[in-house]
């Protein structure tokens, strides 16, 4: 049954290739998938979702999907929500509809396959499937210096994937199976010495895909250049694959190996939050700022993972990480969608060229404001619940008498990130929407009703999870 959710976008992609109307097919498939995804999130425990097709007898490989726990269900839910918003808000250049919507669907199918896969082989393979349209789309339809940027992300993520593959194959060889549940059952076979090496490979491999400092320099230019749906889907959904992989594979299988790298990981994630945060403040363009801010926010999720590594029985860390992944995915997709809208309506994303847009486009300003508040972490919006839970999880197992451990110190430092996000987000909001109107914004069009639909879908998700986080937390406990 889960196979239907995974293959629906891919089938729609093939239909578009064969000549079906691109935009309608994409929206239809994404909407149907959203319905299926919500239904799946409510009923994920039902065994009816599992699907397995033997592909190879020896070694046993199965094209298998299933929800081993609620984390997969949340990620699938995130994917279907962002996919619908992405295909609704994207506007294809003339004559490129097939490529534009087809690639978006292929990315969505790849991400869904990776999140739903129960087999390590397909877990990896579907992510790669989603990367290829990303590269192509940035190279073909990107803005600015698209060829160089696309080439850079291709090389970066290609290398990251290969390092990751090395770790995964090694791990599968030690456990003797590719079935992820079977691997976790056989985790005793992974000896401590190999654990340390594999953990390093997986941290660098997954880390590159999630733009962990210092492997992050591909991310901001790529998002700034990518067409809107691609940026929404990659920053919002696909990038979470690395974090999901760490939680799904690395943390259960390599407790000791990861623990050996805890301090370096904490230093790097502070690099994400503080260093990339300061880089974000200095950005002069909205797209570059959003790209860097998405790199920065990955640091918080790594903090939750670090808390989980330090205290494997920490009950809060994993829900916190997944909740923040969901919240960040939705909010960054919303921001990229709106940034694209601002560029289409005013012709510029340069902060110094914009100003006073709130007068001509009040609805856009209002929605962007909500998105910015979400990104900062205002209570009531999903990111707040996520970030608070992350900070709590870092202190959850702290014994007050023994003083602060490295995770707590890193947590205290990373709370400064909240201030940093407030600085760059509010400054960007002020310089785009407030102050006197300038030439480019004087007669800018506002959002029409149709334009608002994708934004409203995403905002609903942000509020729902923000006001009632148990909606997702119940799935994760």
């Amino acid at each position, binding site marked *: 049954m889960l196979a239907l959710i995974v293959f629906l976008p891919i089938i729609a992609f093939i239909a578009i290739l064969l000549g079906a109307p691109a935009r309608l097919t994409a929206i239809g498939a994404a909407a149907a998938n959203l319905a299926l995804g919500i239904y799946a999130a409510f009923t994920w425990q039902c065994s009816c979702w599992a699907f397995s097709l033997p592909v190879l007898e020896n070694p046993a490989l199965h094209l298998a999907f299933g929800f081993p726990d609620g984390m997969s269900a949340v990620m699938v839910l995130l994917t279907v929500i962002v996919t619908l918003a992405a295909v609704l808000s994207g506007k294809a250049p003339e004559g490129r509809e097939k490529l534009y919507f087809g690639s978006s669907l292929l990315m969505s199918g790849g991400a869904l396959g990776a999140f739903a896969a129960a087999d390590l082989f397909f877990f990896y393979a579907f992510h790669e499937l989603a990367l290829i349209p990303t590269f192509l789309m940035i190279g073909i339809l990107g803005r600015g210096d698209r060829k160089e940027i696309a080439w850079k992300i291709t090389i970066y993520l290609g*290398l990251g994937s290969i390092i990751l*593959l090395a770790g995964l194959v090694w791990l599968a060889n030690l456990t003797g199976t590719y079935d992820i549940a079977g691997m976790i059952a056989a985790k005793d076979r992974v000896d401590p010495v190999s654990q340390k090496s594999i953990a390093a490979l997986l941290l660098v491999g997954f880390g590159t895909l999630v733009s962990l400092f210092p492997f992050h320099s591909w991310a901001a230019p790529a998002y700034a250049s990518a067409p809107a749906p691609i940026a929404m889907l990659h920053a919002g959904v696909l990038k979470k694959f690395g974090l999901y992989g760490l939680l799904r594979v690395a943390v259960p299988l390599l407790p000791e190996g990861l623990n050996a790298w805890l301090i370096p990981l904490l230093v790097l994630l502070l690099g994400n939050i503080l260093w990339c945060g300061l880089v974000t403040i200095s950005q002069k363009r909205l797209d570059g700022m959003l790209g860097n801010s998405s790199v920065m926010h990955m640091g918080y999720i790594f903090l939750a993972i670090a808390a989980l590594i330090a205290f494997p029985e920490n009950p809060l860390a994993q829900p916190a990480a997944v909740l923040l992944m969901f919240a960040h995915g939705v909010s960054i997709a919303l921001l990229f969608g709106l940034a694209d809208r601002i560029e289409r309506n005013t012709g510029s994303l340069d902060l110094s060229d914009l100003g006073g847009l709130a007068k001509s486009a009040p609805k856009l300003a209002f929605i962007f404001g909500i998105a910015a508040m979400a990104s900062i972490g205002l209570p009531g919006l999903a990111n707040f619940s996520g970030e608070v839970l992350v900070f709590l999880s870092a202190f959850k197992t702290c014994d007050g008498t023994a003083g602060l451990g490295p995770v707590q110190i890193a947590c205290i430092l990373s709370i400064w990130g909240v201030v940093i996000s407030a600085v760059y987000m509010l400054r960007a909001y002020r310089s785009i929407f407030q102050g006197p109107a300038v030439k480019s914004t004087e007669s800018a069009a506002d959002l029409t009703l149709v334009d608002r639909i994708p934004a409203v879908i995403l905002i609903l998700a942000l509020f729902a999870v923000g006001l009632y986080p148990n909606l997702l937390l119940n799935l994760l406990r």
Partner: protein
Amino acid sequence: MPAYYLEALTVTLGLILLMAEAFVSSKSKAWVGITAALGLGVILALTTIAIGPDARPDASWAKWPLWNFYQFDTLARFYKIFALVTTAFVVLLSVDYRKILARFTDHPGSENGTGEFYALPVFACAGMMFLASAKDLAGAFVALELVTITFYILVAYMRRNVGSLEAGVKYLILGALSTGFLVYGIAWIYGTTGTMSFSEISNFKFQVSNSSGLFFGIALVMVGLGFKIGAVPMQVWIPDVYQGAPTPTTAFLSVGSKAAGFILMIRFLEPLLASESARGPVLKLLIILSIATLLFGNLAAIPQTNFKRLLAYSSIAHAGFLLLALASGASGSEEGPGSTQVVSLYLATYLIMTLGVFFILAQVRIQRDGESIQDFNGLGQTNPTLALALTILLAALAGVPLTAGFIGKFFVFSLAVKAGLWAGVGVAFIAAAAGFYYYLNVVRAMWWVNPGQKAEVSLPVISKVCVGVLTVATLVLGIWPQPILALLK
């Protein structure tokens, strides 16, 4: 049907084509090629009913002394199918390539000189098929020479083209040299063991006093085989010959000739790996060859600007991966396929991807009059579907998951990890990363660069069907490789 009928039929097909071709009008000789492909298809169907002497021990043919030289096991059947499929595709590729062939063989407007080009691959195919069944070094040598001598002609076929002639001379000289090594090695092996049969060589007890002669012989044979498969340091001929030869010949060389080298190597090494004293040195030799080949093939491919030459380096690179699988020396078991199966599977996926690329390359060569990567500029705009197919094929060659190429690499890596060949695994990862770079370079040219003045490329029907079939097979085998593994059971 006794298995040797297959070779006999293939040779007969070649002879009939040669004779018939002489009596046909010189306007168009395409039908010779189409007949050849059809005939090969019929023989391919017959492989399903071919049997060896074990299946019918009481039949009169089963008692012939032929079976002392000739065997028919799963591997033999697999490589016979492999040879037939490769040759059929190559002949079809030649049909669509005949315009260029005609231009460089006879006066314009006449296809007088092209007829033999369809018949010769059929003879090479018979050689490859016999090679797959060879049971001793003498038989294997004769079969290999049948293949090689046919290739001497095929490489230099475009006799009015300097590049083709140069390639032909280079291939002739270096091929003869490698044959010399091979024969000399065989002589040493025969001299020390007193037998040429593969299975009896393994019975030879390796003793300290007399094994050095045998090892010398083994090393010489490996040099000879290294030439065929393009292992470093015997790879020097590959880039020039691949670039100069007619494109169908290049495709045939890079798939058929390489597979022939590998099946012979598998047969030759099988008994040696089974014997305790020879196993260590042979595996050591293989891993050294593999690392050198992986490094050279992949790193030298990076700066290439000519696509055909790039494919030559890529063929060296793939030989490195195949050698790595052999170097892990795993025998097939319940837990997973052994080196032999992995090499065969890898070659099968390599066949599909490489031939697909050559079909497209040949048409770009004809219609845009060039073979450099620049000539693929903007193909994504002029021919989106064709560019998509080539993207899939190149991604498969680079080893992107969900394509056939990934399955092959995946098995090679698992074997090497299982065997603990860490140096090999490390180099292979660097090699795979380099592969991403140089294959995707072509993808970049297709999609991200404007076509400029470059014309649209329209595929003829045969090429269109073949590219479609091969691309779909690349994708299907990428998620479902079981059919090929079933053939190897």
